[in-house]
């Protein structure tokens, strides 16, 4: 009886210890991934599911964001689809046109053709010093961060990000890093 009780106590303690010291599993798969869709509106309209977005040509690099109050996020290893590629799926983006990026929480951000081509961003070093010679940047629809699918709390499954494809970490202003993107519209 005593031995059984002892065993139970040990088992309970072991379980508690495991919960305490173990590394929490990474939230590697966004719960909404299976139903995630991305609507693209241009001269044509396209709706892509999660696999459809991942099937598009991808681009990878390093990037991070800084909030208007100076909080830095990243830099991260980023993988996604360039906004130019997405615009091309629905008829392209002219030099005087813009992309309107929508999220279901009512947030909307506008990106112009120059920015889609990587120009017009204010780049910072990871120490948040403005870079005098901006590298060539690529804005993307990110779906993978640091090698794992983008979780919901990170803005997943799809979030706008700006990356440096040469791998040198660059931070950009975070206002355009729209979370939970569900629609991109060419205007």
């Amino acid at each position, binding site marked *: 009886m*005593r*031995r059984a009780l*002892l*065993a139970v*106590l*040990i088992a309970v*303690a*072991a379980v*508690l*210890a495991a*919960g*305490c*010291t173990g590394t929490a599993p990474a939230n590697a798969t966004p719960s909404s991934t299976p139903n995630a869709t991305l609507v693209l509106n241009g001269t044509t309209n396209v709706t892509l599911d999660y696999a459809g977005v991942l099937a598009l040509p991808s681009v990878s690099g390093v990037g991070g964001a800084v*909030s*208007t*109050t*100076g*909080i830095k996020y990243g830099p991260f290893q980023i993988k996604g689809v360039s906004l130019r590629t997405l615009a091309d799926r629905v008829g392209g983006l002219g030099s005087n046109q*813009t992309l*309107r990026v929508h999220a279901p*929480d*009512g*947030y*909307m*951000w*506008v990106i*112009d053709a120059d920015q889609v081509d990587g120009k*017009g961003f*204010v780049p910072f070093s990871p120490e*948040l010093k*403005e870079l005098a010679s901006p590298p060539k940047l690529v804005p993307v629809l990110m779906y993978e961060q640091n090698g794992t699918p983008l979780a919901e709390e990170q803005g997943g499954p799809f979030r706008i990000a700006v990356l440096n494809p040469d791998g040198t970490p660059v931070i950009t*202003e*975070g*206002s355009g890093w729209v979370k939970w993107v569900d629609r991109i519209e060419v205007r």
Partner: protein
Amino acid sequence: MRAAAAAALVLLLLFTAGCVSAPAARTPVSCMVAGSLVDPLAGFEAEYEATHPAVDILVEGHGSIQAIRQVTDLNRSVDLVAVADASLIPDLMAGSTGAYTTFGTTEMVVAYTNASRYADEIDEANWADVLARPDVRVGIANPVLDAAGYRAMLVLLLAEREEGRQVFGPVLGDHLSPPLSPVGNGTGLELRLPELVRPATGGKVAIRDGSIFLLSLLEAGGVDYAFEYRSVAEGHGLRYLPLPPSINLGSAAYADRYRNATVYLGFQRFTAIGTERMGQPIEYALTVPDRASHHAEARAFADALVRAAGEGRAGWPAPVAPVTVGLGSQ
């Protein structure tokens, strides 16, 4: 065997003791505050916690609208919201809070450093002419993202109307891409922004997402002058030029006059709020949302914050007689 098991048990119990018997928990009070309140609250947080050790004040800075959206749109558990525009609370939080309290004001100033061109020459009479000089670089925050940005534009519109000559264009509008000009709307001036407000080439004007980056640009010599809140300029130890109360958005006595300037943002960033930004006195306000997890602790902290603001601390919004406005949601 039994001894070994007992030893293992003791080890495990020791090992887990720090884990399962948590230290006395502090009650977290989650505060979403306007960016211009982050620095003042950083010091006040420590001061408050020193006398309230059971409370952990957690301050998170956002633009004022984003601070509110953490409650209304993103459904986060928030105990206190403090914003740099009191009118946003009745507009956006009427269903989320029962009342709000105004607790401070500030005014728009022109901040600069000893290294700014013409720093020894600029004064209340010539500031617009100095800022319009071709070799002077001027910075504003992005009007779509930061209230200080569209308030800078409102100041220039009010100055133009008051002085009866072009001010907005020479200082700012002529150096944007595309160039921008205000138009008359009866008694006042209004400005309609394009979707993206970008500086023209030439470097006369710089625009940054948040005023924090404008400050670092100013301190690094990237711009000579920047439109900022007086409290922020003071908090960063910058020199600044006060502007006349009739245009600086800091005096309730001039509220009617401020309404003669309106800026329309180029797009609706949030579905919850439109694009019109009309001049009005700058007024800070706070509220404890109905769904606050720690209502009593948040209320106590809010009361302490309002009292502290009333002391007229350096780098804080200037004190006003606090007014609590009921919204009728409770």
